[in-house]
């Protein structure tokens, strides 16, 4: 690669003297290069980056020659009469004229060789610098992506402390925290095989799935099943992901967990007494196909004074300066010595002290969660401005009633509209009660008292299904109108079946009765609630204000 080849061009800077002409004349006979390019010495610059091997041919030593050179691969040719001491001031190579042809040729060949080496070195340096800049730029981008991916991470949750210490620039450990819509808290700690960028890449799909599923209040078992499915498809065979996922109930009293290949999470009280070691019952994520994957979760009862410490093996396998492992026993001792969340910094200090100046050999993560009531508000019914007022009417004949799940279908239409969506469970309930009353009692002729008998409940719904299949005439008409300004939705339901009389409130007393509960809910939730025409038309409204339990936690 570094073999010199005859250069295409040699540049010669000269002063136009008789000496220079003589030397150049001789050089032209030597066929040192395809072309000798002649230039005036006054154009020569010591700090110029040279494109070709360069000779300087001068009758006398010039002051510029004393300056430092950008490229030292240039050969100065001077007549022999000059003071040899002056040559020492020139930073490059030199020879004195005249010289035998073989020696001259050799000198110039060496110059060419040095020039080519330096040239190659320079271009390699440039290419390395370019690559380094490129990698740096890409790291920046990737870091940015990670930051965005984890921007929702709820590590500010007041009852958790976390330590994440990556061994390389990117972390193969992941510690994610997210609130659930019921006020529960999800915490996940995951450890991908290896450390650095490759394992960190797996963190992206995993964290996105985690946050999306926490938002939907998905259970721990279903979450890990989904994670495993994704990672099994995504990761190469030799890579997998140990994972500990827990959900703490809103009241802080129940902790549900799944441990696949992680060291035992430690549950201890505020005195430091270890109460549980939540050991791995499963293999890591990404190892087994879905058919063989075991999503069985466990749960324990917890109380406000309990703490749970989750950590990756990087913590217990941390090396001290004397190359001893920290080990599980010592970690337990540290936790027992510092059982309070406010001691977290001192605990970390202890761990740092153990490690001393020994570098981290693996990513190391530790999270300690206090099992107190989470204090997280359930998902809020936010008021969304700019909803459109609307009304619609649907008239259903016997065929429609047989074939369509009417209440679900209507909620399918209105249940995801702005403002209505946070009330869809209640709207469903109200419409279902009114609709089922009309259908079951007035069109199908069913009597709720059937439900009072043993097995009556099931029998009632069997009869309902049978009579609905046989229904050949009958009509139910539903009208819905919504006024965003008054936050009120109004339903009018009418039918052409038999008359019906709502039971009075007094007749519905008693907690364990088998029917009439729907009517009671209607009376509580609907405003107004009016029957006309012997019960063949019912009108009811509902105010879309935040539900009671929401109001109490947010107000």
């Amino acid at each position: 690669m570094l073999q010199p080849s005859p250069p295409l061009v040699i540049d010669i800077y000269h002063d136009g003297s008789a000496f220079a002409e003589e030397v150049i004349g001789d050089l032209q006979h030597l066929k040192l290069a395809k072309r000798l390019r002649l230039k005036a010495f006054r154009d020569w610059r010591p700090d110029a980056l040279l494109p070709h091997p360069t000779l300087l041919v001068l009758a006398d030593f010039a002051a510029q020659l004393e300056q430092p050179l950008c490229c030292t691969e240039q050969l100065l040719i001077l007549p022999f009469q000059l003071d040899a001491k002056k040559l020492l001031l020139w930073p490059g190579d030199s020879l004195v004229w005249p010289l035998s042809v073989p020696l001259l040729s050799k000198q110039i060949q060496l110059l060419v060789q040095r020039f080519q080496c330096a040239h190659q070195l320079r271009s390699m340096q440039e290419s390395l610098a370019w690559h380094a800049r490129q990698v740096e730029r890409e790291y920046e981008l990737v870091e940015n992506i990670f930051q965005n991916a984890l921007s929702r991470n709820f590590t500010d949750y007041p009852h958790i402390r976390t330590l994440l210490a990556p061994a390389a620039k990117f972390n193969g450990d992941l510690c994610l925290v997210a609130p659930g819509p019921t006020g529960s808290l999800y915490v996940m700690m995951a450890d991908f095989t290896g450390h650095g960028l490759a394992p960190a890449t797996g963190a992206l799909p995993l964290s996105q799935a985690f946050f999306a599923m926490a938002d939907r209040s998905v259970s721990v078992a279903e979450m890990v099943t989904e994670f495993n499915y994704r990672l099994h498809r995504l990761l190469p065979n030799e890579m997998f992901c140990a994972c500990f996922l827990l959900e703490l109930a809103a009241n802080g009293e129940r902790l549900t967990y799944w441990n696949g290949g992680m060291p035992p999470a430690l549950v201890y009280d505020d005195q430091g007494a270890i109460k549980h070691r939540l050991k791995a019952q499963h293999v890591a994520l990404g190892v087994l196909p879905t058919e063989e994957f075991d999503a069985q979760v466990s749960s324990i009862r917890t109380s406000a004074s309990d703490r749970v410490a989750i950590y990756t093996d990087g913590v217990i396998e941390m090396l001290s300066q004397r190359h001893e492992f920290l080990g599980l026993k010592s970690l337990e001792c540290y936790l027992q010595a510092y059982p309070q969340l406010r001691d977290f910094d001192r605990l970390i200090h202890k761990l740092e002290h153990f490690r001393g100046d020994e570098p981290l050999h693996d990513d190391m993560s530790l999270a300690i969660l206090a099992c107190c009531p989470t204090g997280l508000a359930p998902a809020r019914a936010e008021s969304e401005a700019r909803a459109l007022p609307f009304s619609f009417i649907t008239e259903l004949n016997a065929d429609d009633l047989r074939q369509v799940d009417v209440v679900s279908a209507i909620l399918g239409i209105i249940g995801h509209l702005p403002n209505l969506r946070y009330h869809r469970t209640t709207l469903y309930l109200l419409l279902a009660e009114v609709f089922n009353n009309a259908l079951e009692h007035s069109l199908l002729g069913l009597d709720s008292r059937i439900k009072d008998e043993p097995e009556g409940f099931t029998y009632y719904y069997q009869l309902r299904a049978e009579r609905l299949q046989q229904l050949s005439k009958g009509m139910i008409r539903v009208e819905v109108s919504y006024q965003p300004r008054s936050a009120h939705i109004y339903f009018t339901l009418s039918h052409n079946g038999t008359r019906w009389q709502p039971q009075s409130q007094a007749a519905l007393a008693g907690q364990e009765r088998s029917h009439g509960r729907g009517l009671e809910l209607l009376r509580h939730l609907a405003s107004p609630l009016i029957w006309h025409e012997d019960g063949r038309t019912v009108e009811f409204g509902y105010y879309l204000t935040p539900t009671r339990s929401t109001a109490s936690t947010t107000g």
Partner: protein
Amino acid sequence: MSVVRHLSSDGKELTIAIHGKFDFGIVQEFRRAYSSLGDQKPTVYVDLRQTEYLDSSALGMLLNMRKAISDHVKGIHIINCSAEVSNILDISRFDKLFVIE
């Protein structure tokens, strides 16, 4: 699968999760979910985290369950209720019959 049953490995906890719509349409599935309880007298958790819709027939089914198994279990908890579902259970005073978490 709108009813998912899960008995813990030590037999002490039975979780029944209802997905989507909780009404008479799943009456058989729901009964099957608590038909075998094991011999550990488990605590039963009815997990409503993913219950989007329910009506009074669901309340009837919960009461039927209570009638059928309350002597054979340690307790029946209704867990992970949304604000709307909690409100509905409150109005029906289910807090007196079940542990609502």
